[in-house]
């Protein structure tokens, strides 16, 4: 792994930590208080705050996981640098797209229909 990829992966991990804690707190809050899906969507729809929160989460997770998959592709799959980088960009794009789609689904429900 080169220096830049190492820094991006460690940096994204660092930034994701408070987001993960916040995400877990939200899950526990929603499940313990019995908040329904409709109520959750009522709070997230049109919320810039939640859009930024989960949008940032998606970008960070996509970058972090893609770099990890690149290493796995090289070490366990025996792929070359170039092929592993292709896996990284492909996986990153896929995670980014799917993640962003999920964010849109709670911020602007109906926009993907």
């Amino acid at each position, binding site marked *: *792994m*080169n*220096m830049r*990829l190492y*820094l991006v992966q460690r940096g994204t991990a660092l930034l994701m930590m408070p987001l993960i804690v916040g995400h877990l707190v939200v899950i526990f809050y929603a499940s313990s208080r019995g908040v329904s899906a409709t109520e959750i969507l009522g709070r997230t729809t049109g919320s810039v705050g939640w859009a930024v929160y989960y949008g940032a989460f998606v970008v960070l997770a996509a970058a972090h996981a893609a770099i990890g998959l690149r290493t796995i592709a*090289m*070490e366990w799959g025996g792929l070359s640098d170039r092929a592993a980088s292709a896996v990284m960009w492909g996986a990153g794009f896929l995670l980014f797209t799917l993640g962003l789609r999920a964010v849109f689904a709670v911020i602007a429900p109906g926009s993907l229909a």
Partner: protein
Amino acid sequence: MTLADARADNPVKFPDIEVAIWRGSEDGGYRTYRVPRQASQTVLDVVTFVQRRIDPTLSYRFACRVGVCGSCAMTVNGRPRWTCRTHVSNVVEDDRLEIAPLANLPVIKDLATDMSRFFEKWQEAKGVHVPTATRHDPIPTISPLETRRAAANAAIECINCGICFSACDTVRWNADYLGPAALNRAWTLANDARDGGHAARLPAVAAKGGCHACHTHQSCEQHCPQALNPTASIAGLKRLTVEAFIRGELT
């Protein structure tokens, strides 16, 4: 009376050890020998017994026999060990030993591996002291209490046995990886105030296959016969390289 004492008093009462030793090169196989048990017997004693008394064609390496030279490392019952300091009583399972050459290195013959790759990695990691003074200069005074010297001292007692290289998963998966021993050496030099090779060493250990490839599995620390912690040394190199990158000294 302990079991060890009992064996020492009356070794004939105890069964021989069945020793499976790797014979041949990469595509070789195990051959089994029976070796009499002795008190305080080491694995190296067992291998030596086989070569001297049973099969003189067996190839293996050793030199000092006292844990200093680092040349007798082998895989014993699946784990890399220094055989001269490994007592049979501590590793034997059901009166059986399986002895193979070190993993992650090409086998030349039997228990002797080609360690070129291991030592080439030391060169690639710039694990060589670069002097900054001549013999005519005064000897610098360095307190052993200095933080950098203490860090170097904690990692300096490597005997180049190759056990960490053999135990490392990343070495097995990544042919470019410099390995725990070479990076540990680079860390000791990076903390040596007398060394002048820092500028060349940091890019070498930050390159592809350098310190950032370590997964922190800590097999090196687990198996190091000198009880060193190369993983901690590698973590130190990660810190140094990140600091240098932030300062713009690494691209």
